């Protein structure tokens, strides 16, 4: 399928630049390796979801696992997102560590009752007696006319109510490290991956390392403005920063990594230095992640801000199918550049 081979310009995050010559793996391989090693190490970990054992292997991330671990640990399921989420949660509170995989975040809308009314509230309602070590993976679709029900990036719906953790890896390094952290976390964690990043290579250590949930990453340092980005928008931000550099504008680019909880300190520190903030998120605008960051930073950095905070998000309409409209729909590095230029004197 043509739409399975999108391409995106990639970059190497500052933090891992030294190791950039070391072990390289794609985002896809990083996930596959993380899953394999988690399963090998901890008998309470298992994988479930529609087609997780098939020949596509969730875009290649679960390929071959069923041969190694068998059908009892790589469990193909019926199509019943709400009930199966409850079943996964039931297993989690009885001592297992399920990884429930959805091909698209869009399908999570069916399971929000079990996710938000149950999994997210269970620890609190039970006074901490019953933790829910449940990991949900889903992969943001985009392009090739996937349209309104197969292209959504719904992190904001998962972050509004208290209780879930949500992470969005932008690099191969994070794809594995956040997966490991999520599976070891005693709380329900949703990992939103991005399909367009799957072929991106990057430094990926062989061991089962964790990227801490709740911490952002400084991808590039700069003093003129801060760009906080999520998922694929991190790459657009890095590209924008490269172009801006040519005009002697040094943007500081932060990869949020963890959407909830999020690293306020990191963003505050950066904005106190630069005085300017752009937030570029893959989701929608109204009450989105960008709104939260904007509202919070506007309060915390009141004295430092030299210009209004700008949000770059999907426009206020569902995702259209036509290629001509998709092209207009998704913001990219050019929008970031334009917005940055508007903020600077």
């Amino acid at each position, binding site marked *: 399928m043509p739409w399975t081979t999108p391409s995106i310009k990639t970059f190497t995050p500052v933090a891992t630049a030294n190791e950039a010559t070391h072990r390289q793996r794609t985002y896809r391989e990083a996930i596959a390796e993380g899953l394999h090693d988690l399963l090998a190490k901890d008998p309470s970990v298992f994988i479930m979801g529609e087609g997780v054992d098939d020949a596509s292997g969730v875009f290649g991330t679960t390929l071959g696992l069923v041969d190694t671990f068998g059908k009892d640990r790589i469990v193909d399921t019926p199509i019943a997102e709400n009930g199966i989420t409850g079943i996964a949660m039931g297993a989690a509170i009885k001592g297992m560590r399920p990884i429930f995989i959805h091909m698209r975040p869009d399908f999570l809308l069916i399971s929000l009752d079990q996710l938000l009314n149950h999994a997210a509230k269970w620890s609190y309602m039970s006074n901490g007696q*019953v933790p829910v070590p449940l990991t949900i993976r889903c992969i943001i679709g985009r392009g090739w006319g996937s349209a309104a029900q197969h292209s959504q990036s719904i992190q904001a719906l998962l972050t509004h109510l208290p209780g879930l953790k949500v992470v969005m890896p932008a690099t191969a390094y994070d794809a594995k490290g956040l997966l490991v952290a999520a599976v070891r976390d005693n709380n329900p964690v949703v990992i939103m991956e991005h399909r367009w990043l799957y072929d991106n290579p990057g430094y990926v250590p062989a061991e089962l390392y964790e990227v801490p949930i709740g911490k952002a990453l400084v991808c590039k340092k700069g003093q003129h403005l801060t760009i906080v980005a999520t998922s694929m928008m991190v790459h657009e931000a890095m590209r924008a920063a490269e172009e801006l550099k040519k005009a002697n504008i040094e943007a500081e680019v932060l990869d949020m990594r963890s959407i909830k909880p999020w690293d306020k300190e990191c963003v505050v520190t950066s904005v106190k230095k630069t005085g300017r903030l752009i937030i570029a998120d893959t989701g929608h605008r109204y009450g989105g992640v960008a709104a939260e960051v904007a509202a919070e930073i506007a309060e915390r950095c009141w004295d430092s801000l030299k210009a209004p905070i700008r949000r770059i998000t999907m426009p206020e309409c569902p995702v259209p199918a036509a290629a001509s409209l998709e092209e207009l729909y998704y913001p990219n590095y050019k929008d970031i550049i334009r917005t940055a230029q508007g903020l600077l004197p």
Partner: protein
Amino acid sequence: MNIDDQIALQLFQKMLLIRLFEEKVIAYYPEQEMKTPVHLCIGQEAIAAGVCAHLQPTDTIFSTHRNHGHCLAKGLDIKKLLAEFYGKKTGCSGGRGGSMHPADPTCGILGTSAIVGGGIPLAVGAAWASSMQGKNEVSVAFFGDGASEEGTFHESLNFAALKNIPVIFVCENNSYATASPFASRQPLTVSIADKANGYGMPGVRIDGNDVLEVYRVAGEAMTRARQGQGPTLIEAETFRWMAHVGPVDDTKTGHRPAPELAAWRNKCPVQRLQQLLLNKGIINSNQEEKLRHEIDTDLEAAISYAKQAAAPTKEDLLNHVYAD
């Protein structure tokens, strides 16, 4: 006393505890100190008692908004439960759950959902975990007739049948969901138990006010589950005596017809077993009196305890949103 008589006596004790517990709630509720919406199960005690009599503390149950009976039958301490109703720190959920969300992992209550149909898949998942862990444990999903209309019911039965999971689905069909009668919600030509056939699972419809029948049928289901023969759906017909929520008679408020309630009051499950025990000479009326008195004393003590216990404070508000 032979074993059957012993069991009958234990079932009676459990049912009586549940009945008197609920009556105690009714007695104290008007004080307006128990600030929690109570969904009383008077009239339905036999199901909780008959099913839970087969369970170990490591077996799990998942209940609903109408959970008091299930929790007591599963062994939840009356002090912890009442303290929860009074919103106290020593309540089984630290006062955060109220009457709708009791939790006590030490006796197999891994939290309670008051979302109709919400607990059913949790029971399937917990039972599945047990079998993955190679343990010989079962899980019970208690739910009402209304819950059998939710998609989670269908999804749970399909999965449990598919994977041969040791879970028992216990539907307490009391003919109403709030004040909405069964006939407004499901076709009358079929029962809830009938739906089990669609999943290749045994479905049994029983008199939910006959605790010995409940005990027997639940026992068969447990045996099947523990022997790896998979899930069972039990539909137990019963009736709730009090309003959907709160300690009132809702036939007086026009929510349900009074004659219907009157007929069901005559089928009181507690009375029925008591009569049997007396007739068979398993207990005499003195012993019965004494039992009631003992339970009442315990309940009074628990009420006092709950009233005097400390309420959660500001330091408690934000903790445990995330587990450590």
